């Protein structure tokens, strides 16, 4: 069995370094189909298990506003990699965790690598890794890509995560009473469309509809549930 692992993170978090550490620097470089965005793929052999590592574009979020973000998000949704390594700048958690939350909402099988831990320590931070795992419901480890610290552990954790793929609990963010109710209603409607609900995480789909995400709305436009969705939205208005 080959484990398919996607690597994602904000720009300048050391993503390329970690990719190189994992793959030994040997990568196949090409383009994402039909896009001018570079795609890198490499292999990693760990304890007799082969992992295919795919480097996703560096992004701050997963909206439909830029090609980079769309490429990353479509890969996770459509190709469904076994594990997604989210590389987080430990010295700048506030900004970096935004992407983490979006990956969790996307129901990706996330492993969080808190990279640049050395920089964070120099700044006076101390990070409670266990608490990160508990609060976000995803395994987290500390890494320093420049010195390869935590790389072996990262591979172990990725292998472990690949096994528990289906038993993951869902990560839900509360958006306030009005939106939470709306999301629930939309989920009920969307479940009826088997084509959509088998392909996409439904709660995420509902959130994206409310955010008026253009790519998702294009999909919903073709769905037989379209009118029911609009009716549900209209109902809450009055």
């Amino acid at each position, binding site marked *: 069995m080959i484990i398919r692992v996607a690597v994602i993170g904000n720009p300048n978090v050391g993503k390329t370094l970690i990719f190189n550490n994992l793959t030994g620097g040997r990568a196949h470089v090409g383009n994402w189909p039909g896009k001018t965005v570079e795609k890198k793929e490499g292999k990693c052999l760990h304890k007799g298990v082969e992992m295919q590592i795919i480097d996703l574009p560096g992004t701050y979020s997963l909206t439909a506003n830029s090609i980079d973000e769309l490429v990353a998000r479509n890969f996770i949704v459509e190709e469904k990699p076994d594990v997604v390594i989210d590389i987080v700048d430990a010295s700048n958690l506030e900004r970096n965790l935004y992407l983490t939350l979006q990956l969790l909402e996307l129901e990706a099988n996330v492993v969080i690598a808190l990279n640049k831990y050395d920089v964070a320590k120099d700044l006076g931070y*101390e990070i409670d890794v266990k608490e990160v795992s508990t609060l976000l419901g995803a395994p987290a480890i500390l890494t320093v890509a420049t010195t390869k610290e935590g790389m072996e552990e990262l591979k172990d954790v990725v292998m472990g995560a690949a096994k528990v793929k289906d038993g993951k609990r869902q990560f839900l963010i509360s958006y306030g009473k009005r939106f939470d109710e709306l999301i629930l209603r939309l989920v009920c409607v969307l479940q009826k469309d088997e084509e959509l609900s088998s392909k996409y995480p439904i709660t995420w789909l509902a959130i994206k509809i409310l955010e008026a995400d253009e790519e998702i709305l294009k999909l919903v436009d073709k769905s037989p549930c379209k009118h029911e969705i609009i009716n549900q939205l209209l109902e809450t208005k009055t």
Partner: protein
Amino acid sequence: MSEKIKEILGEDAEVAFAERRYALISEILPRILKGVRPLTRSDLLDKALLNKYLGIPIFLALWWALFRFTFDVSAPFSDLIRMFLSKLGEISRVSISNQQLASFVADGVFGGLGGVLGFLPPIFFLFLGLAVLEDSGYLARAAFVVDRIMYKLGLHGKSFIPMLIGFGCNIPGVMATRTIDKEEDRILTILVNPLMSCSARLPVYVLIGSAVLGGYAAAGIYSMYVLGIVLAVLMALLFRRVIPYFKGKPSPFILELPMYARPTLRGTFSHMWERGVLFLKKAGTIIFLGIIVVWFLSSYPWEAVHHGDNFLLENSYLAMLGKGIEPIFRPLGFNWMGAVALFFGFIAKEIVVGTFATLFGLAAGGTGEVIPALRVSGIFTPLTGLAFMAFTLIYIPCIATIAVIHRETASWGWTIFAVVYGLILAYVVALAIVGVGGLFGHV
């Protein structure tokens, strides 16, 4: 469908979702981060520079300091260059026997082009100041501070960077809009970019300001930059409201703030040099060509203009052209010289200065320097001078910028629109300056 959802939920649903996510992050953070991060010097600086209320005044104050610096420090250097070139002009006039050739070299080359080159120092010092602000990490913070306002006004936050670049030159400014994802946001930013006062306008401001604004010259120049920013914002706002194509909200963006750094001598000077040299190249090519045309039109028909010992500029082709278009500018208080200067200025705005330099040089027999000559001629009052500066700022972007606008929007429609709205706006603003000033008893 997207429109419908926005209509039902209101425009801000996406922002509300993002806010909730950030709120959740702030709840999580204190539980996972042990140990308190001490405030670094960078944090303290950011606290002041990025402050909600202090940020903008600090930005404006630094900008003001930059222009005072540019204006004051460069003045003696400019004087030196002008003196040197006018000496060269005198020498060549005496030593060349052919009258027409002597006039060409003395009035056209050393007078006209020299008039433009005299403004090399302020341009270099402006770029020096900008390089210091950029290399220290402040410029990115200025973008952050201004973004808050811009977003509320309906301009994309990323448009601030092209706007800042536009202060150097509108061409790279327009090209830098490529970083903006949404086509509507991008075109809107392109359309207002020429309102950013590029370095080519600076010579015009310095010339008119020094000649007629007296002690208020620096303030007048500064006000042009502020006017440009204000108009850009107002126009963006207007276009967003009025033109259906731009309806909707700009997409939010994340800006990464670089660490503060002490600018290095080498880095700063190489930045200044790279940009300054562009001006020199331009002076050697398109500006030079424009000035030759101006010299030719103002010296010919030779017999009619050089009547015996008298120099009759009124008989030149240039005067005919100028008097033809003068009526358009009469309400603004510009005479025919101002009119032709603006006419040729659309090739490159430095030519406005070159035109004045050639005209006064010819009239004074090549001995006069352009700033005192303009002051003595009395063709501008402080008020019409200010109106002329504003007109130069706003009207048609130069030819090269128009070409880039066409290339980047891939549309003749938007290109023509950019030119036409610029002309109308320039006229209206200049008229308003003259009109309002008149109300307060100035002429």
